[in-house]
């Protein structure tokens, strides 16, 4: 019986005009999102490669490791282009230093403001905004529409249980909604392969999981609109109700929760933290200058001076570096804790909205969640240690100044400085997250989506048990 009802529901939608329009629009949007994504990926890959080679060729002209200004770059990832998340907001370039705090700058949006205007056109946008709208379009008159057309009475004059009927509605319309997503999605996957975008097996699985969570997501919207259609007797009214739910889920709740969270958990802004850091550095600099003066006053300028000066310089550098590190660390940690707390509140509140839950889940799967910056900074910091060790071996000082005294008469042809060998530099390789790690981060929100589906469907079912079919 259920099979007959699912099949009928599916066919009823497939034959309808609203389906043709939906299919056309979604095919266009999904394929466009793939195309735009692929082009963006290719472009940012080109930028990435050229930035890397400029970095290397600049260094290659140097003859002394002391003058090296090394940069590392965040490599674009194919999935980030389909599920943008924060990928375009986070800086892509880091000035590598032997010591000291590293920062990211040069984000996609800061370089390409026009790109920021069209930030929405990724696959995730299409699922989160467009498909949820299609879901309510498919579900808003599920029950009351059939009552209005009198078919409900005709159906229930047969040996049909209400459970079968409403399950048929849900499954039928989910299937009908999967079609306009999966068909252009498969075309998009072919495009990815055709354009030669390197996607690993892990990333294919992540993409599959993202699509599956998309099904769960619009399943929730179908369930809620079926519920509404079983509570409200007129289909025109239930459409309005469903639309209101959609607006709240997509627009109002996520934005409001961020506002509310920033009220609940106050975080000092970045400028204030920077000011604190600058103040500390100025104090340090003043102290250091004082020490240096004292050293110079008591110094004797003989042959050993340059060595003694460098040793002294290194030792105070080390001390100040240590001081600075602990202070900055404390400051950063404090700020991060507050920020995390605020974020947690924002996320907690926003999870009233299925759209937010889906966005959190999918960005976790794609690795473009808000922790992206943190994860990347960790990778860069790890590299910094490697880089620092390497530079130390090359005799680069810890920072500050360095005095080299050369006797001018002894210069010969052989001592002509040779260019440095850049390839000796340790390579920065960012390890990509595997499926298991991404999935485990997404699990709570996927669980929420499952629970939401069950709860909303149960609500619809209970409402339908009391529904007057006449």
């Amino acid at each position, binding site marked *: 019986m259920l099979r007959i009802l699912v099949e*009928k529901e599916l*066919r*009823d939608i497939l034959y309808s005009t609203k389906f043709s329009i939906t299919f056309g629009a979604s095919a266009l949007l999904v394929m466009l999102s793939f195309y735009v994504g692929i082009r963006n990926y290719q472009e940012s890959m080109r930028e990435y490669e050229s930035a890397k080679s400029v970095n290397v060729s600049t260094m290659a002209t140097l003859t002394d490791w002391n003058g090296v200004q090394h940069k590392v770059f965040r490599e674009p990832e194919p999935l980030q282009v389909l599920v943008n998340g924060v990928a375009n907001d986070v800086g892509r370039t880091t000035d590598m230093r032997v010591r000291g705090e590293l920062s990211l700058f040069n984000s996609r949006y800061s370089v390409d403001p026009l790109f920021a205007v069209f930030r929405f056109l990724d696959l995730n946008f299409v699922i989160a905004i467009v498909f949820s709208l299609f879901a309510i379009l498919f579900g808003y008159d599920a029950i009351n529409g059939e009552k209005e057309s*009198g078919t409900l*009475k*005709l159906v*229930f*004059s*047969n*040996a049909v249980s209400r459970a079968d009927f409403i399950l048929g509605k849900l499954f039928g319309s989910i299937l009908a909604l999967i079609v306009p997503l999966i068909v252009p999605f498969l075309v998009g996957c072919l495009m990815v392969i055709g354009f030669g975008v390197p996607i690993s097996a892990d990333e294919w699985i992540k993409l599959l999981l993202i699509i599956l969570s998309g099904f769960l997501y619009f399943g929730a919207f179908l369930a809620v609109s079926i519920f509404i259609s079983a509570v409200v007797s007129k289909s025109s009214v239930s459409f309005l109700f469903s639309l209101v739910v959609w607006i709240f889920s997509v627009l109002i709740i996520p934005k409001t929760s961020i506002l509310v969270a920033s009220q609940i958990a106050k975080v000092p802004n970045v400028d204030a933290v920077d000011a604190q850091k600058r103040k500390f550095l100025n104090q340090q600099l003043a102290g250091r200058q004082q020490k240096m003066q004292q050293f110079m006053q008591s110094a004797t300028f003989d042959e050993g001076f340059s060595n003694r000066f460098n040793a002294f310089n290194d030792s105070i550098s080390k001390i100040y570096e240590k001081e600075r590190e602990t202070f900055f660390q404390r400051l950063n940690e404090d700020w991060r804790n507050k920020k995390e707390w605020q974020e947690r509140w924002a996320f907690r509140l926003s999870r009233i909205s299925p759209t937010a839950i889906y966005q959190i889940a999918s960005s976790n799967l794609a690795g473009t969640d808000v922790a992206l910056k943190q994860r990347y900074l960790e990778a860069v910091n790890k590299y910094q240690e490697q880089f620092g060790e390497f530079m130390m071996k090359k005799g680069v000082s810890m920072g500050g100044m360095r005095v080299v005294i050369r006797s001018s008469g002894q210069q010969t042809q052989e001592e002509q400085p040779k260019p440095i060998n850049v390839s000796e530099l340790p390579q920065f390789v960012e390890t990509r997250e595997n499926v298991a790690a991404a999935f485990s981060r997404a699990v709570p929100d996927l669980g929420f989506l499952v629970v939401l589906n069950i709860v909303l469907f149960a609500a619809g079912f209970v409402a339908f048990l009391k529904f007057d079919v006449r």
Partner: protein
Amino acid sequence: MEQHATISAEGLTKIYEDGVCALDHVSFAVKPGEIFCLLGGNGAGKTTAINIFLGFIPPSQGVAKIHNVDIHRDPLEAKKYVSYLSDVVMLYPNFTARQNLDFFARLGGKHALTRDDYYTALRRVGLQEKAFEQKLKGFSKGMRQKVGLAIAIIKESPAIILDEPTSGLDPKAANEFQTTLLGLRAQGKAILMSTHDIFRAKEIADTVGIMNEGKMLAIKSRKELEHEDLEQLYLNYIHGKVAA
């Protein structure tokens, strides 16, 4: 006698939530091969009785049975033996006549029907051939009603319940409809239909139940009606009731 009835009401009473008594201890029975007309004016309680027989609403008192199964006790079992046609049949506008028929046939437990079976049923109710594979969207009321009747026929259930099936049909269509019903009676179906139409009731019914304000005033067989003017009888009963 009661045992043989395919459709039977015993002391059926319905009081709606707002206190309206739409049915007041109504009893009747429809045997195989019998057409039973519920005759009554607006608000007499005909639709209420039919809705109880289909399990759409529970009775306040009394029992409604189809094929000897209490519809309220075991609705899914009882509904296997009944097919239904209402006064306004919209059906699924995106499906063709055949697709509508196909869906409802399978709901009614007919899984192995072929296209020819559907066409036969549609021909039997007099739908023009070219409409068989057309979407219901553009169908007139009469055409939809024909598809609805085909749906009721194809289930091959022993009981058929029709709520004012000919209201809004033109005379020719109503006549065709009547012919089909007579064919079904010849097949041994028990048919319960409601109507306002005294003349049609007299023409087609084996038994007429005259209803007013929720009460069954009289049940007359064809034989009893042969020498009487049903219209006069009907008015007499109603006025008699009003006067009483």
